[in-house]
């Protein structure tokens, strides 16, 4: 490859990889005694801590093992995962729309986007979920009608806004407000010249957003969005407020209330949350690698 490149183009001279006549300096690696001491101290502490937990009867490890893969727990894991993924999808879609609206020339669209973020970021998620739960009580019927005129269609709300839908919309809308700010930061981080270069090519607005700005903003957007996704995973335990009773925390709480043994079931729930978080982090790694194309990773480690 090197020889092929060598013959083409001006201003590019590949450097020979290694020349035989050069004797490299003999470099003696620096010693790091501090690291070895730290390893020894930590090893003792970890072993002690491990022993203190594993042989401690108060942790009821037998109960932990019995319920770790119990059907209601597994069902809870499934629902929690589903709520996280669907609510996050709703949030990303809404936030994507809002961030474009905020950049719009239409003052009404800008106002709506601003108001949405103001409201959903400014009220507690628990209160919002309580209201989503009360939605069917506050509005028993959803109808499409001409204002002050005849009614066209009418449906009972409880068939549309089920607890699952209420949970998804409640979590998703709340999260969209935070994501809008993250997306905005991502798009603002791009040089203005990028959009101008695309405009100069005759690209239309939608194409510029999708092909030029979005892939570049992703680099900035993904890490905090990963945070938010993991936050959402744990926030799903609040759907109790609706009440939605199939998620992981509710399932393990129900069992522990029956057994009067809260500790092992808290450990069960904790283990599963940790497992799902690990899975999400792997996904984030690959997303970051994909959108990091064309940008060399800079290590922030000094010296």
């Amino acid at each position, binding site marked *: 490859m090197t020889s092929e490149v060598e013959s083409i183009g001006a201003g590019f001279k590949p450097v020979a990889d290694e020349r035989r006549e050069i004797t490299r300096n003999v470099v003696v690696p620096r010693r790091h005694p501090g690291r070895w001491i730290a390893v020894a101290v930590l090893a003792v502490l970890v072993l002690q801590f491990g022993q203190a937990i594993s042989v401690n009867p108060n942790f009821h490890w037998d109960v932990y093992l019995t319920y770790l893969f119990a059907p209601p727990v597994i069902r809870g894991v499934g629902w929690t995962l589903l709520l996280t993924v669907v609510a996050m999808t709703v949030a990303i879609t809404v936030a994507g729309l809002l961030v474009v609206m905020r950049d719009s020339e239409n003052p009404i669209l800008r106002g709506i986007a601003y108001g949405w973020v103001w409201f959903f970021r400014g009220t507690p998620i628990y209160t919002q979920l309580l209201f989503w739960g009360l939605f069917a009580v506050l509005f028993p019927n959803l109808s499409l009608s001409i204002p002050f005129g005849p009614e066209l269609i009418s449906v009972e709300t409880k068939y549309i806004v089920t607890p699952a839908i209420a949970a998804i919309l409640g979590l998703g809308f709340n999260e969209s407000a935070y994501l809008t700010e993250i997306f905005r930061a991502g798009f603002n981080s791009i*040089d203005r010249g990028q959009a101008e270069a695309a405009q*100069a*090519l005759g*690209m239309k607005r939608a194409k510029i957003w999708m092909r030029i700005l979005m892939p570049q903003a992703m680099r900035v957007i993904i890490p905090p969005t990963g945070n938010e996704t993991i936050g959402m995973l744990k926030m799903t335990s609040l759907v109790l407020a609706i009440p939605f009773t199939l998620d992981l925390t509710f399932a393990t709480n129900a069992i522990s209330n029956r057994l009067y043994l809260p500790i092992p079931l808290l450990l069960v729930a904790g283990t599963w949350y940790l497992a799902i978080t690990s899975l999400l982090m792997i996904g984030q790694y690959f997303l970051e690698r994909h959108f990091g194309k064309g940008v060399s990773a800079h290590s922030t480690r000094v010296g």
Partner: protein
Amino acid sequence: MTANISEFCVEMQNIHKFYGPFHALKGVSLRVRRGEVCVAIGPSGSGKSTLLRCINQLETISAGRVLLKGELQGFVEQDGRFHPLSSGQIAAQRRLTGMVFQRFHLFPHMTALENIMEGPAHVKGWSKDQARTKANQLLERVGLGGFGGRYPEQLSGGQQQRVAIARALAMEPEVMLFDEPTSALDPELVGEVLDVIKDLARSGITMVVVTHEIGFAREVGNHLIFMDQGQIMEEGHPRSMLADPQNPRTAAFLSKVL
């Protein structure tokens, strides 16, 4: 060839541009013939870049008219009033021009080849293969055959600017606009970019070039304008104007840069 209403590729009529209270362009008129290489020089802040950006509507003019090949840009004029075009129509008008920026503005998440393919494939709607063939031809033309797989970050400034020129050419524009194309380059890289631009100039494409390279203006320009404080102070053929400037401001400027 069909008769054209205008022999001028670019026609600017009495352009004014305000940024808030700041009067950046004060009634500039300019005509560029087909195949002409029009070079704009002048001190920083004289409005030459603004003028260039008005041609492809990156700036909205406050007064006057910009015509490309006789067609009014950005508006439809009816009963003495100006009706703005939609953003889609403006995007379509921008295909008449290609622009090269001072700081390249290559798309960093795409390889050199993908940068050049972007216009043909995603604006003109060519097939990927067609666009790739065209992009490879253009890379050869700017002396960068074999560099298509590199990301902008892996290229020198001069190479990036040559890719940017190829990207603009890929849209087959009627007019090429250069906004100080060598100002952000290390001195030893200026030559390779100027060579590509000179080559283009000789190929007969209409060009408007904002630059500080007086030598370039003399060598390939056939229409020179000197701008100062938002106005064209002097206009003429580069050789005569550079040798014998009529306006004292032109003379003062040239004495500093030559």
